[in-house]
């Protein structure tokens, strides 16, 4: 005996060698393993193969564990889920008596009115029918994910799967063989298991076969890709072909009393007696229609089980052991229960006469239902094949004469009849209305019965050809943690100054996939430094693209709507990028480097899109252009403010005066020993230098600028200060201040478009759009009243005459102007903007932009 015991609802249950949780519980006298979902009927062990929901218990706080396929271990804490006050004495069993008053669809019909009742009813229903509470505080990272590449993936390590794996390996394939359980672990001793062990030995000897047991196949996806899950791992198998040897379940027959504890499928009873040495009952009736059923009968008799009657086809009469009464071609009518809902007798029809046989267990083995869900969910052209019992086809459909069709969702044959009478007349819509096949077995037990019912009721079609409901992954229950194991959505980009910013105490936040400083302290001081002295900002996040090749000038001329082909070396210009529909995709600065190449910067979030657009148009126009995305290679620092030139000059011997490097100029200079491409830009509205430098030189350059800046009390500034600095200049953020269908005209950026050019991307659309009115404009607003912090106005609807006519996209209190300002899109009427606007409690008026230094004298300094 294996030392130890498991703890079951306050008592110790001894474990024997090879026990599952279910076998240990059953040996200890537990007969009610669970309560059904709605009617709270007792449910006992049934399939023994981990398909049906009957044996689901909570193990160590994890609900929904199928005890029949879970190895027992010392110290386990096992509880049954549903039941109030307990599963053994469940007062909510009264719902079974009320079943006629609670027909299928009861919840949807009853609680839909009044509307407020549903949330309350939902809570009550969830508590009453839920399948346990998920454990809290578990470490989700205990799951890992991995990918495997093989020539052939074989699902199922029974006889057919082992043989298929061997055949593939011997043909030279790399093979992955998977099974939800250890090979042969669920089979009772006997010739069949001996055969499996012999094949297993051969498989183990093949180096080309990787055996992945305890991994359940969840689904087949295009590729084909096969998803497997274990208790701690998700495996994605990329296979040249998939062989499904998933076997078959024993047929679930629907007849009155079919869900009583004491009704067993043959495999479960055979395992319990043959593998675990526990009799499924004291007086057992066996209904066996197949060779496998006869094997189960022999196993039971061989284990000393008192089989009082065996109902078999007449051809099998001679195979019935003499200790059991052989009944030829008997028809099973019903099972009847007694106290505690267990089987007390079975009623049969034998030679036209009904007969009742007292018993406490009924073992059924009437046919096989192929487990073919994985094949049915695969695209038809995928190399996926079924072998072994999984390839048996539909065969004889199960009977549906009463009882419960769907054990998981507690859907009875009567429920299906009623749904049918209400007009739900196909397997698919019966499924949706009754939720049959939607429970934890995913239709493995009841899918064929549902289809058979629908086929039988619809024009007497051949039941074997009944259409099945769609198969979808996962075909086995899987923890959400397993599915999330491979998912890490957030990708963090960092500039070379990331650690420097952290060391400076910067508050970092997300911006376009980058972690950027939003402020180093009080952002107002940072703002003031830029306006009054000098500020430094890390703009290494900007997209940076080198455009070279003999057609580089042609490309930029075609892609950007502005006049850029004539850009003189050492000059740069603001550019827009348009979609063919004329909508603004991004913006940036294009600089001419002097050797026929161009240096382009884009928004921080737009680098990849811009690069892709340039590549696309290079290809579409058939140009000879080389593109190099230098975003990762280069850092960039902005030095801005009235003292910027002095600061920079103290670290560089190169000429950076207004003549050598005017506004819009571009020049290669060396700053603090770091080679830089310096751009004179004006995003913040002050004299500014954008220093693009090798990434490795970033920390040194920054440190030297900070040190040299001490003389003028320069400050690093972050996104918070930038937000107001650029707002005062009226510069829109593409994305924040724009909508997907904004044209240059709507944004007031016509200056970046030269309609005199014969062709550029989006030109035809702009020409067409120009014939109509501009229905919406991005405008500058000046606010009166409203919140003290005008930033709160961002996102506010803009009203005029009682109507919503726009939305505030940016807002803030301008220290330079000493008033609240903002950008907003506003609808025009007859081409005119409304005069009196409101936003929240504030009144607003449209004013020209830039708000600050409209002549641009400061930035040209």
């Amino acid at each position: 005996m294996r030392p130890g015991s498991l703890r079951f609802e306050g008592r110790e249950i001894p474990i024997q060698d090879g026990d599952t949780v279910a076998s240990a519980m059953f040996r200890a006298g537990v007969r009610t393993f669970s309560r059904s979902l709605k009617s709270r009927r007792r449910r006992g062990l049934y399939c023994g193969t981990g398909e049906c929901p009957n044996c689901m218990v909570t193990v160590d706080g994890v609900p929904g564990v199928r005890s029949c396929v879970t190895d027992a271990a010392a110290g386990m804490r096992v509880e049954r889920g549903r039941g109030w006050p307990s599963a053994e004495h469940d007062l909510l069993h009264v719902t079974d008596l009320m079943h006629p008053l609670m027909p299928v669809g009861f919840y949807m019909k009853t609680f839909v009115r009044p509307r407020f009742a549903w949330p309350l009813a939902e809570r009550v229903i969830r508590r009453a029918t839920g399948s346990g509470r998920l454990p809290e505080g578990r470490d989700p990272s205990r799951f890992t994910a991995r990918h495997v590449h093989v020539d052939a993936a074989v699902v199922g390590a029974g006889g057919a799967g082992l043989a298929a794996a061997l055949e593939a390996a011997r043909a030279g394939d790399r093979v992955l063989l998977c099974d939800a359980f250890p090979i042969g672990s669920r089979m009772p001793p006997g010739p069949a298991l001996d055969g499996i062990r012999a094949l297993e030995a051969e498989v183990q000897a093949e180096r080309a076969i990787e055996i992945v047991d305890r991994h359940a196949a969840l689904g087949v996806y295009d590729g084909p890709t096969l998803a497997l899950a274990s208790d701690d791992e998700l495996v994605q198998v990329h296979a040249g072909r998939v062989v499904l040897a998933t076997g078959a379940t024993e047929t679930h027959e629907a007849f009155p009393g079919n869900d009583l504890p004491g009704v067993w499928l043959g495999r479960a009873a055979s395992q319990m007696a043959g593998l675990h040495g526990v009799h499924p009952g004291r007086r057992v009736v066996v209904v066996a229609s197949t060779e496998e059923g006869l094997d189960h009968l022999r196993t039971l008799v061989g284990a000393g089980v008192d089989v009082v009657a065996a109902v078999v086809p007449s051809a099998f009469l001679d195979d019935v052991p003499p200790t059991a009464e052989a009944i030829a071609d008997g028809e099973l009518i019903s099972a009847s229960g007694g106290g505690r809902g267990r089987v007390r007798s079975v009623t049969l029809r034998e030679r036209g006469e009904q007969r009742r046989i007292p018993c406490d267990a009924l073992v059924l083995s009437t046919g096989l239902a192929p487990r073919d869900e994985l094949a049915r969910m695969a695209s038809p052209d995928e190399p996926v094949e079924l072998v072994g019992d999984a390839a048996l086809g539909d065969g004889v459909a199960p009977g549906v004469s009463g009882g419960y069709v769907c054990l998981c969702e507690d859907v009875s044959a009567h429920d299906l009849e009623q749904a049918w009478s209400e007009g739900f007349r196909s397997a698919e819509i019966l499924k949706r209305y009754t939720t049959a096949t939607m429970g934890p077995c995913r239709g493995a037990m009841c899918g064929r019965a549902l289809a058979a019912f629908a086929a039988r009721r619809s024009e007497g079609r051949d039941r074997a050809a009944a259409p099945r409901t769609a198969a979808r992954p996962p075909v086995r229950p899987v923890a959400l943690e397993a599915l999330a194991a491979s998912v890490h959505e957030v990708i963090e980009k960092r500039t070379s100054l990331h650690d420097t910013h952290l060391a400076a105490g910067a508050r970092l936040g997300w911006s376009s996939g980058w972690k950027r400083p939003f402020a180093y302290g009080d952002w107002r001081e940072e703002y003031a430094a830029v306006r009054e002295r000098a500020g430094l900002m890390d703009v290494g996040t900007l997209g940076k693209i080198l455009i070279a090749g003999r057609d580089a000038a042609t490309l930029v001329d075609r892609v950007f709507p502005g006049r850029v082909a004539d850009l003189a070396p050492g000059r740069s210009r603001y550019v827009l990028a348009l979609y063919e529909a004329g909508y603004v995709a991004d913006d940036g600065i294009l600089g001419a480097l002097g050797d026929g190449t161009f240096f382009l910067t884009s928004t921080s979030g737009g680098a990849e899109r811009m690069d892709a657009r340039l590549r696309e148009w290079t290809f579409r126009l058939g140009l000879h252009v080389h593109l190099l995305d230098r975003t990762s290679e280069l850092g960039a620092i902005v030095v801005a403010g009235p003292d910027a030139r002095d600061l920079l000059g103290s670290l560089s011997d190169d000429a950076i005066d207004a003549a050598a490097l005017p506004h819009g100029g571009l020049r290669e200079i060396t700053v603090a020993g770091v080679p830089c491409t310096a751009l004179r830009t004006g995003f913040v509205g002050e004299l500014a230098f954008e220093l693009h430098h090798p990434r490795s030189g970033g920390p040194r350059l920054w440190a030297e600028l900070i040190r040299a800046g001490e003389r003028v009390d320069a400050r690093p500034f972050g996104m918070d200060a930038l937000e107001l600095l650029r707002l005062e200049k009226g510069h829109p953020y593409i994305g924040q201040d724009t909508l997907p269908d904004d044209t240059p005209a709507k944004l007031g950026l016509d200056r970046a478009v030269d309609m005199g050019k014969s062709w550029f991307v989006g030109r035809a659309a702009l020409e067409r759009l120009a014939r109509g009115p501009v229905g919406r404009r991005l405008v500058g607003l000046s606010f009166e009243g409203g919140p003290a912090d005008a930033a709160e106005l961002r996102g506010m609807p803009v009203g005029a005459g009682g109507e919503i006519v726009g939305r505030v996209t940016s807002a803030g209190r301008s220290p330079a102007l000493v008033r609240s300002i903002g950008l907003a899109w506003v609808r025009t009427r007859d081409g005119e903007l409304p005069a009196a606007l409101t936003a929240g409690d504030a009144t607003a008026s449209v004013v020209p932009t830039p708000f600050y230094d409209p002549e641009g004298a400061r930035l040209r300094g």
Partner: protein
Amino acid sequence: MAELSTSAPTVTAVLASPDACERVSALPGACPISPGEVTIVGDASITALRQAVQRIDPDAVVRDVSDGWAMHTISGERARDAFARLSELELPASGSVQGAVARIGVRVLVEGDRVDLLVPSMLAAHLRERIQDECRELLS
């Protein structure tokens, strides 16, 4: 087990016409990226490369782009197992592939039990954290 180390490789970008790129795509450390682009990892003479490709494509661009890249190396007996946790790319016995590793575009160089991941510098810290997280019990 496997070991994770990070280095700053020498990387040269060659942008040229396809036939010019072919001339350098067989060099040691060469990763063909597209018909018009080859990345060469390791010491390479830019002058020699430029001469080789500009003979065919006078506009060809050959640049040292080392600052744009970092190299994470996973080596040891479990190196391939570790990689399988990060990417669905199928590794050759030796050579290079490119694709998503932890959802990041990476150029991968393989030689036996050594897997070099060439990653853009801006994403290097993130990828290293992902490797350490996903492969923690495989790394020594």
